[in-house]
């Protein structure tokens, strides 16, 4: 067990190292950040040279990378070129907003998708099945900016139930600012979370449907019927656990994706999350923030993958007891 953990950790470190190289050279090749730091209208050549030296950009790239890495190992991602704040602290300040958005979206998507998939897969070709299949094609193919705008139009403009953008009032909890504890905060969460949830409902429903159709044809489900169990008990106590491994894998991947890449939704709803920070920082060539964000996202993905693996062991005695 110990060797397993050591193996996993060393692999994770290797992934992080590779990612830092790719991210570092990638952002370097996009352009010179110095023009975003100085005021391009008024700056003299002298100013630009001084800024370049101050940021360490006059050094060769490999040297810049080594300095960056040694700082990172000391726990310092550097200072944002634009905001003049410690980069990592800046990223961490955005984490609660992103986390509560992604979590709310997944709390909507996972149960709805699984339930729809179970009901559809149980009677293939039935009306629930056909409705779920058709709706899921729509939900997966409409672009998220369009979906956001339709939801704003319906939920905010026409009905006036929810605010159309921004994050609600926050409350300090465990050293971070959270908005889900207030009613107004929840109302602000509703529309962006729903926008993120809808394609995931479709994805999970399709996956659950395929799993259900397969499991319901297996002998043990037939045996459960023969031994006199109600079909509801069979569905929830036997079919559901048996289809959940691919679903949990998908939830883990999609959740990680929402942490980092919910850019469109965060932009439209002016949600101050990590995706928006990442895109802004890339545009401004704010290398420390980009690197800090990428590192956070990779660590989150690695953590989620480990959680999914742990879930396999919890769920499946054949994994746990071998």
């Amino acid at each position: 067990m110990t060797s397993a953990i050591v193996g996993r950790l060393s692999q994770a470190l290797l992934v992080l190292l590779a990612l830092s190289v790719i991210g570092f050279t990638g952002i370097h090749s996009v352009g010179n950040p110095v023009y975003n730091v100085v005021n391009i209208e008024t700056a003299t050549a002298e100013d630009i040279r001084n800024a370049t030296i101050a940021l360490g950009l006059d050094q060769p790239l490999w040297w810049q990378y080594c300095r960056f890495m040694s700082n990172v190992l000391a726990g310092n991602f550097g200072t944002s070129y634009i905001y003049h704040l410690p980069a990592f602290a800046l990223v961490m300040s955005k984490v609660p907003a992103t986390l509560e958005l992604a979590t709310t979206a997944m709390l909507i998507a996972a149960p709805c998708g699984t339930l729809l998939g179970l009901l559809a897969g149980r009677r293939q070709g039935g009306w629930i099945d056909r409705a779920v299949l058709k709706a899921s094609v729509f939900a997966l193919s409409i672009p998220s900016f369009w979906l956001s705008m339709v939801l704003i139009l319906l939920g905010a403009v026409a009905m006036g139930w929810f605010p159309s953008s921004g994050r609600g009032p926050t409350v300090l909890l465990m050293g971070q600012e959270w908005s889900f504890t207030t009613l107004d905060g929840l109302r602000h969460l509703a529309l962006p979370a729903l926008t993120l949830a809808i394609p995931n409902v479709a994805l999970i429903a399709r996956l659950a449907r395929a799993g259900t159709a397969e499991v319901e044809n297996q002998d043990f489900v037939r045996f459960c019927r023969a031994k006199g169990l109600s079909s509801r008990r069979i569905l929830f106590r036997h079919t559901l656990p048996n289809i959940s491994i691919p679903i949990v894998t998908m939830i883990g991947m999609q959740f990680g994706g929402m942490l980092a890449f919910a850019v469109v939704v965060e932009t439209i709803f002016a949600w101050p999350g990590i995706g928006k920070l990442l895109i802004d920082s890339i545009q401004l060539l704010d290398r420390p923030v980009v690197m800090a964000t990428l590192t956070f996202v990779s660590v989150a993905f690695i953590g989620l993958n480990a959680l999914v693996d742990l879930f396999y062991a919890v769920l499946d005695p054949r994994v746990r007891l071998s």
Partner: protein
Amino acid sequence: MTHDSALAPLLAVRNLTLKHRGESGAATILQDVSLDLHRGEVLGLIGESGAGKSTLGNAILGLLPAEFDRMGGTILFDGEALDAADSRSWGRIRGRRISAIFQDHTASLDPLMAVGPQLEETIRATNDGISRQDARIRAIDLLIRVGIPDAGERYHSYPHQFSGGQRQRVVIAIALAGSPDIIIADEPTSALDATVQKQILNLLRELVDETRVSIVLVTHDMGVVSDITDRVVVMRHGRVVEHGVTSSLLDAPREPYTRSLLAAVPRLRLSDPETRQEAGENPKSPQPQARHELAGTPPILLASGIKKTFHRRSLAWFPKGHGKPALQDVTVALEHGGITGIVGESGSGKSTMGRIIAGLETAGDGTLEIDGTAFDIARSGARNGLLGKVQMIFQDPAVSLNPRMSVGATLQESVRFGTVRPGSERPDVATMMDRLGLARSLLARYPHQLSGGQKQRICIARALLASPRIIVADEPTSALDVSVQAEIVALLRENVTERGIAMLFISHDLALVQQLCSAIYIFKDGKIEDKGPADFIFAHSRNPYTRTLIDARPRRFTH
């Protein structure tokens, strides 16, 4: 067991006709089927694949898929028509009055739920108002009754932690949970080893005598029928061919089909071979004197000191666990042109041995010499040149042919990559088809268009066309019906011996091995338990394990 036939039967199927709506139109699966089942009786339902026996079992359980249409007839259970039952009435029938045991004990249990709770939920579903504690006590009692040792401690063990026989015992306990009147047992012992099969059949018989439950035993195995049934119904192509009391039907079958079914069952002979020679049966090859001449020559294949350990695969990224040895220091020799048998129960390492010889598996230790050439068996991919020397015939022909390649293309490939020995012609596919009794028109077909027997013939043709020196046949007939099995065995014997190929025949069936093989190895737990000439082993071996295997066979089919 006697029963008063004046009493109304517990279950009566009357003129049942069922059609199946398939893509290629409707097919009649059951035609005018009638049978009676009395209380405390074991009724055997025997037939080959496609006879409709499992469909009949499912119809009684009300578990037929929607594509089946009832064209006529009724099923009367305790005087009431089951066809009228809606899903709510089925809820009061299934588990409580009619329950089931399926063939595959592994697939019958939910792999993610411990066995105790699976039994407990059945007890709670089939006994109104029973408390959780009482259900658990009853569950443990049932597990003890069906012979699970340490039932209390193993209550929270999962299905994969039990052996196959124990899993089937758990399934039987679940079937008994609602104290049913009838159990539909669909091939309950077909997936088990012979010794375990015997124990499970004994358990079922005990339960019938003890609780007066009735069993409909669906099977293809005459041995099972002769062991525990009171009456038999023989089915073929959806019709009842013949029915009657088991002993009289087996002793004096009236219908030719029943007679041919019985004749196709391989019989184990325990007497000395001399008596058989007098009886004028075909001698096995190589003939005794020929074998004597060969005794001086070295064997064509010598695998010595083979050791193999499988490492269990666990989660990706996790290190390999310690495996249990599959083969421990095993030595096997094949004589030129002879058929050698390996017999053993599941997990004995017999298939692993075959795969190592065929180069499909590596071994940790040992040497392999074929025709005087040594092969490296520790590394995969280091076996060049084996193709023309060793060919393999697998158990399940349905999955051992490429479904996207026509039969002709499959066979041509074998010719192309096989070896042509100097002085002999390249084998011809069409001639081979004729030789194996296959129509040449089949060459254009794809595997799914063929019957199981045809597919296995194609697999034999594929092996023979590569002109090998050795053929490894791993249970080549156990996925086939008995009548087809007899044909395939005859074909193998003729074609292999006339070409001077040495064959390693791996099987769990003693009688089959005795019919075919001149020498036999008996494997147990990765070791050779017993070995010797086939005739000697069965008539005279004093090895206790060999005797156990022989005793596990139905008496009717030994002589």
